[in-house]
C-alpha cells in the first residue's frame, strides 16, 4: 500500500507512541489531583506545554490544549467574537479556509455578526490590499489560514497580520497544515492566535493546541472546571499531550532534512506526471507552497473515479471533487481560485510524508497515466469529434 494522504492524517511516529505509553497505565493520574499520581501527570503536561511553547516562540501560559484543530479554530474564532462583541461585530476571513473555520463564521453570521470572505487570486493567495479594504472600524477579528490543506499554498501571514495589528484587531491563523512542517515563530508571524493539530505531524489524533497571545481576550467554549487557566475545561488528555510534544520535538529535529527529501520527491512527481499526461494542471505551482503537497487537476475526468482507480492499485490519495463528499459542489478552494466547475471536479491531491519513498513515487508515475487514459476513454469530453 502506498499512502499519499499525509495532509489528511499521519501515522504516529514510533517514538511518539513510546513516549505516550507510560501515561496510559503507570502514570494515569488526573493532573488536577493533589496526590503523587496527579502531580506526576501534571508535571508531564506542563513539560509538554513548555516544549510546545518553546518550539513556536511562545510562553508556556499562552498554550491551551484542545482536542484538535477543529476545536482550536472554534475556540479562537467564537472565543474572540464573543469576548469582543461589545467592541464591534465585523469579522474577516478568506474564502479558502477549512470548514472548521468557514462553518464557524457562517454560524456567527446567523448570530448577527457581519463576515467578509476575502477572495484569492488564481494561485490561491490572499492579497493584502483586499484585506486592507475589508477592514472597518468595527472589525474585531481576522482569521486567515497559514497553508491551505488542498493546494498547500502558504499565505503571506506576516504581511496580513501587520495590517490587522495596525488596525487594532485580533489576528488568528489556522496553522494545522504548517505546524511541524515549517518553522513557526509566533512573533515573526505576528499572530495573536494559532491553531494546531497533533495528528498532522505524526502525533496522535484527538489532541491539538491553540496559541493565545498574552492579553488576548477569549470566551471559553467548553465550560466546567478551571482547567487551562479557565480557557478550556475538561481533564487534560495526558497521553495525547505528551505525544504531541514529542511529535513536535521530532518534527523540529528532522524538519530541514524532511523538507529537502520530500520536496525533491514531490517535484519529481509533478514533473513526471506533467511529462506523461496531457491536459493536466498542477495547481499553484508558482506560489509559495508546502513542500509535500501537490494538487493536480485532470481535464475531462472526475476526481472520485481517479481516486478509486488509484485505490485499486493500492495508492491512497484525496480528491476535492464533490463526489467524495456528500455535497454536490466541488472544492470551494478551487472555485475560489477561479477554476471552472468541470476542471475543479477532476482534482487529485497527493500529500507526501515521512515514509514516502522514491519507489512509491515511481509506482504512482507509472500507474497514473494509464488510469487517466482509461477514464478519458469513458468520458464524453476532450476527444476530437
Amino acid at each position, binding site marked *: 500500500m502506498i499512502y499519499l494522504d499525509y495532509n489528511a492524517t499521519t501515522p504516529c511516529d514510533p517514538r511518539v507512541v513510546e513516549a505516550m505509553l507510560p501515561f496510559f497505565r503507570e502514570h494515569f493520574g488526573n493532573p488536577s489531583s493533589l496526590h503523587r499520581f496527579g502531580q506526576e501527570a501534571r508535571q508531564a503536561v506542563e513539560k509538554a506545554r513548555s516544549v510546545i511553547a518553546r518550539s513556536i516562540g511562545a510562553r508556556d501560559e499562552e498554550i491551551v490544549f484542545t482536542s484538535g484543530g477543529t476545536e482550536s479554530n472554534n475556540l479562537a474564532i467564537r472565543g474572540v467574537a464573543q469576548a469582543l462583541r461589545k467592541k464591534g461585530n465585523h469579522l474577516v476571513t478568506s474564502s479558502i479556509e477549512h470548514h472548521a473555520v468557514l462553518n464557524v463564521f457562517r454560524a456567527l453570521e446567523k448570530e448577527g455578526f457581519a463576515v467578509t470572505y476575502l477572495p484569492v487570486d488564481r494561485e490561491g493567495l490572499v492579497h493584502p490590499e483586499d484585506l486592507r479594504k475589508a477592514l472597518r472600524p468595527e472589525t474585531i477579528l481576522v482569521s486567515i489560514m497559514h497553508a491551505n490543506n488542498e493546494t498547500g499554498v502558504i499565505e503571506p501571514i506576516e504581511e496580513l497580520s501587520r495590517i490587522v495589528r495596525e488596525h487594532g484587531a485580533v489576528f488568528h491563523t489556522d496553522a494545522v497544515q504548517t505546524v511541524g512542517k515549517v518553522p513557526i515563530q509566533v512573533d515573526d508571524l505576528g499572530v495573536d492566535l494559532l491553531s494546531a493539530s497533533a495528528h498532522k505531524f505524526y502525533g496522535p489524533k484527538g489532541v491539538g493546541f491553540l496559541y493565545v497571545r498574552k492579553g488576548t481576550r477569549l470566551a471559553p467554549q467548553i465550560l466546567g472546571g478551571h482547567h487551562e487557566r479557565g480557557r478550556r475545561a475538561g481533564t487534560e488528555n495526558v497521553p495525547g499531550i505528551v505525544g504531541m510534544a514529542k511529535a513536535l520535538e521530532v518534527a523540529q529535529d528532522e524538519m530541514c532534512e524532511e523538507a529537502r527529501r520530500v520536496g525533491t520527491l514531490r517535484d519529481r512527481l509533478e514533473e513526471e506526471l506533467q511529462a506523461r499526461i496531457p491536459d493536466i494542471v498542477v495547481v499553484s505551482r508558482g506560489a509559495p507552497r508546502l513542500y509535500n503537497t501537490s494538487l493536480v487537476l485532470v481535464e*475531462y*475526468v*472526475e*476526481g*472520485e*473515479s481517479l481516486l*478509486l482507480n488509484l485505490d*485499486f492499485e493500492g495508492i491512497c490519495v484525496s480528491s476535492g*471533487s*464533490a*463526489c*467524495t463528499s*456528500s455535497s*454536490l459542489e*466541488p472544492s470551494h478552494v478551487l472555485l475560489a481560485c477561479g477554476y*471552472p*466547475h*468541470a476542471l475543479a*471536479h477532476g482534482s487529485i491531491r497527493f500529500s507526501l510524508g515521512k515514509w514516502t519513498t522514491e519507489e512509491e513515487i515511481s509506482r504512482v508515475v507509472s500507474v497514473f497515466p494509464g488510469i487517466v487514459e482509461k477514464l478519458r*476513454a*469513458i*468520458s*464524453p*469530453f476532450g476527444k476530437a469529434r
Partner: protein
Amino acid sequence: MYTEKVLEHFRNPRNVGRIEDADGVGKVGNPLCGDVMVMYLRIRDDRIEDAKFETFGCGAAIATSSMATELIKGKTVEEALRVTNRVVAEALGGLPPHKMHCSVLAEEAIRAAIEDYRAKRQRT
C-alpha cells in the same frame, strides 16, 4: 461505501463508447453538477440491439451507466422505459443515499435517447 457490484462495474464498465449513426442519442447532466452521461442506442423493430455510453462522473455514475446499458440491451423500447433509477440501483446492490442522483441520471439518459429515437422516426 460502494457495493462489490458497483465497484465491479466501475472497474470493468460494459458497453463503453459510441455508436456511429446511432438511432437514438441522449445526453444528460451538466459539468456544473459533476456528471455528464451520453447514451447511444441502436434500435431495430423497436428493440434495443445495442447500447453504449460515455460518462464523465464519479464511480457511481460510471457503474450506473454500465448497468443501465446492460439492463436495456435486448429490451423493447417500451420495456426499456420501465428501467427506472431504482431498478438500476437495485441491480447494483444499492447505492449510498447521496449517490442516488447518479442513478437518476442513468434513467434520464435512457429516456433522452429513446425520445431522440422517436423524434428521428417521426421525421422520416
